[in-house]
């Protein structure tokens, strides 16, 4: 071997003073400490403190500790509301979970390319401003509905509990199906082969292997839908008619009666189902982790797995019907934005768009900047949290991480209320500012980036950081030169999720907006509740277009970066 040249270069000539006796608290270490302090401090202040404030508000009346707020909840009027809530939420959650399971199974059993296509379509339908389904229902099937009245000459009343169940069911199918598909994909395909090999039919395999494997996921989805539906005040307000539920009442109590104690007690009632959902979610994760030890890379290709024809037809019909309704929904939104339905005749109009131009552009701009800032902040904090918790394994970080996951599971109405009661006084007076909206959106979605970063770190060889330190990089340098570059795709993924959610959210922030800091999604909600359907449709269209555009840009960037984090 010829190594002789450049020998002089390689003489071991290290100079000690280069790395002199710096004090342990060097500049980099200081920055590291400050970042840690900011992450932990902000999570405590903007998550734990508001939650604590809701609970404390609910047990105080006129400054004295009392359980009156809870006692009042048991009045006959409120009991009726609770009963209504339970009835509607149970029905729509069970229906939604069942239909989502059908779609997920159908997708799972398709050839890889078709399955990927359905999955992508489902992801697209996640980009949906709230209540556009309600809007579509009213405009297509309502008293003056395009289909019921214009085409069929009927006058149907869509208002009532049936309308709520229909919309809540349809509204959460995409989310539920995506979660279930992930659970199905985590099944080791060899289990299915083994089951067939041991003499079970496809149907028996479905019954004995597939469904039991995803049982925790099904429960987790069921309770998640239940939680979301219980906390949904918008749909009942728009389509419920005379039918009232607990969440609507809590919303009204905050806005009309301004009785925060009572509203707080009501929203505390929404917590138990959320905790159960979370429990099953965690259990599901653990199960997936323990299954993920083996090799499960075996793809579905060439795997002969056919359910009986009638089941395939049923699953296919449900999936097809769902996408047809989605098509109808989006089509209707775009159509309604530029038409007006006068005495049974659909006519083109610029009216809505003109009205939008004058009044709404600042709100859309505010929505956009709020979602972008929240997307960036939530992703950075989520990744840093994961880094300090799992990579540096600092003490006490596990409970902090749990706190960060709370806003994801508690109802938006609860979290919004927390910000009202938590930040309405000096020195934390934030009411009515854009900052409070950004903070609320940011800290609601830390969990997404955090979970994504946790997964990415699992696949990232720890020795990369050891190597970087070995080569002289300080902890902060490692973050900027190794960790963040390698987690770029994780960051983008988290950003897209948070951005999309923030652009279309109403639940938590509706309590935080004033005319000064109103955002597009809230304006849209108000338009729909006031019957300005055309204007609402324009806002919905703009929100959809902007969100899809940003998503496409981010996905394109993601594709260029190689898609998924590098696995060492």
């Amino acid at each position: 071997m010829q190594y002789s040249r450049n020998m002089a270069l390689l003489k071991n000539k290290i100079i000690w003073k280069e790395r002199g006796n710096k004090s342990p608290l060097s500049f980099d270490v200081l920055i590291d400490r400050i970042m840690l302090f900011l992450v932990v401090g902000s999570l405590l202040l903007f998550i734990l403190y508001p939650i604590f404030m809701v609970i404390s508000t609910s047990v105080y009346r006129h400054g004295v500790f009392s359980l009156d707020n809870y006692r009042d909840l048991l009045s006959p009027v409120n009991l009726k509301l609770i009963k209504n809530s339970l009835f509607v939420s149970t029905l729509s959650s069970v229906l939604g979970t069942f239909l989502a399971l059908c779609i997920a199974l159908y997708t799972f059993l398709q050839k890889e390319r078709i399955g990927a296509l359905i999955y992508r379509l489902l992801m697209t339908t996640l980009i949906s401003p709230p209540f556009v389904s309600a809007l579509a229902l009213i405009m297509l099937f309502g008293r003056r509905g395009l289909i019921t009245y214009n085409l069929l000459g009927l006058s149907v009343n869509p208002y009532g509990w049936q309308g709520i169940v229909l919309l809540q069911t349809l509204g959460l199918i995409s989310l539920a199906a995506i979660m279930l598909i992930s659970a199905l994909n985590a099944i080791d395909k060899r289990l299915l082969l083994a089951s067939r090999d041991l003499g079970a039919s496809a149907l028996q395999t479905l019954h004995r292997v597939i469904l039991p494997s995803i049982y925790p996921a099904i429960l987790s989805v069921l309770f998640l839908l239940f939680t979301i539906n219980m906390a949904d005040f918008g749909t009942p307000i728009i389509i419920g008619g005379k039918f009232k539920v607990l969440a609507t009442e809590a919303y009204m109590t905050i806005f009309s009666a301004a009785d925060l104690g009572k509203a707080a007690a009501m929203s505390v009632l929404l917590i138990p189902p959320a905790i159960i959902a979370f429990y099953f979610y965690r259990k599901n994760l653990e199960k997936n982790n323990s299954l993920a030890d083996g090799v499960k890379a075996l793809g579905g290709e060439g795997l002969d797995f056919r359910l009986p024809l009638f089941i395939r037809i049923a699953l296919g019909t449900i999936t097809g019907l769902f996408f047809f309704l989605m098509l109808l929904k989006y089509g209707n939104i775009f159509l309604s934005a530029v038409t007006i339905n006068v005495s049974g005749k659909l006519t083109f109009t610029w009216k809505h768009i003109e009205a939008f131009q004058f009044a709404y552009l600042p709100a859309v701009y505010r929505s956009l900047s709020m979602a972008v800032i929240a997307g960036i902040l939530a992703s950075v904090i989520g990744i840093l949290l994961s880094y300090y918790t799992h990579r540096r394994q600092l003490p006490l970080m596990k409970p902090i991480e749990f706190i960060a996951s709370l806003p994801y599971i508690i109802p938006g109405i609860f979290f919004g209320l927390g910000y009202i009661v938590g930040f309405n006084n000096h020195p934390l007076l934030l009411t009515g500012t854009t900052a409070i909206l950004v903070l609320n959106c940011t800290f609601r979605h830390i969990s997404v980036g955090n979970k994504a970063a946790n997964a990415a770190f699992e696949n990232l060889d720890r020795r990369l950081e050891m190597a970087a330190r070995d080569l002289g990089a300080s902890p902060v340098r490692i973050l900027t030169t190794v960790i963040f570059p390698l987690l770029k795709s994780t960051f983008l993924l988290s950003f897209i999720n948070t951005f999309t959610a923030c652009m279309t959210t109403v639940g938590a922030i509706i309590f935080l907006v004033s005319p000064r800091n109103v955002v597009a999604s809230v304006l849209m909600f108000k338009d729909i509740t006031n019957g300005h359907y055309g204007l609402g449709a324009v806002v919905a269209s703009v929100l959809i277009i902007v969100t899809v555009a940003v998503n496409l840009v981010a996905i394109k960037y993601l594709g260029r970066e190689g898609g998924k984090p590098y696995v060492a």
Partner: protein
Amino acid sequence: MLLELKGITKLFDKDNGVRDFNLTVSEGEFITLLGPSGCGKTTTLNLIGGFLQPGRGEIRIEGRDITHLPPEKRPVSTVFQSYALFPHLNVLENVAYGIRFYRKEKKKQALSLAREYINIVRLEGYEKSKVGNLSGGQQQRVALARAMATNPKIMLLDEPLSNLDASLRHSLREELKSLQRQLGITMIFVTHDQSEALSLSDRIVVMDKGYAIQIGTPREIYFYPISDYVAGFIGKSNILTRVGETIMVRPEDIKMAKNAQGDYTISSIVFMGQHTEYIISAEDTTLEVVVVGKENNNFMQGDRVNVTISHQLGQMGNEDISLVPELK
């Protein structure tokens, strides 16, 4: 002394870690830490690299205590198992990383210095390649260049050859040795492969359950193992009881001669080409015998043989290493 480890102890739990580890390394030496997985060899390396803090003991380089220095300030660098190359950087940027942050050179200067090291490991033309697109052997060279580029006083290598296939492993072993010899870099090498240890090292540290069982040259370790554990881990050995005394004998140090009234019967034969392994047994003992060369290779299963022992493994005890007689 370049490196001194004095009474290093680092315990993870009752069974894992390093206990009372003492070692001195002089400049230019090639030291191998050898042992089965879980014996503490990587832990020792990580203690020297600064990735772990010892519970007790002291680490000195050129007399200077570095026990509490963080890895980024220690004059040692590591070639990690599976290399830990930065996947988002190209070959040149990987090699330049330590020059920038450890030697604190400006980026431009760092990149031009890095080229020199890339030439040394003969990777010219691959400067702009993504490390993920390189073969295992090339990645290994990048890792080597990256570690050398900080001008370390000691290079630590954690099973750097274990990810390579057999023939590549063999040729890279040669390269590593000649690199080390020509550049005079002090290296501490971790492996569980006895042939790597024997062929590369100036001295071998045999480890078991966190203890350094024996430290010596490859010849000392092979011919004068201090325990049956060492004898069994490096090469094979037969344990015999003779007149109340237990002795160890390497399979190749036993000669067989056919004899119809012989004490031993050949019970199994494994033909390996280069050599042949025989298992022979008498009433209460079973021995393994290795025979080299074609002319001695005419034994059949069931043959009765007598054996003579040409060399028994000596107990080193406390006797001075230099007094060990030179072997033929």
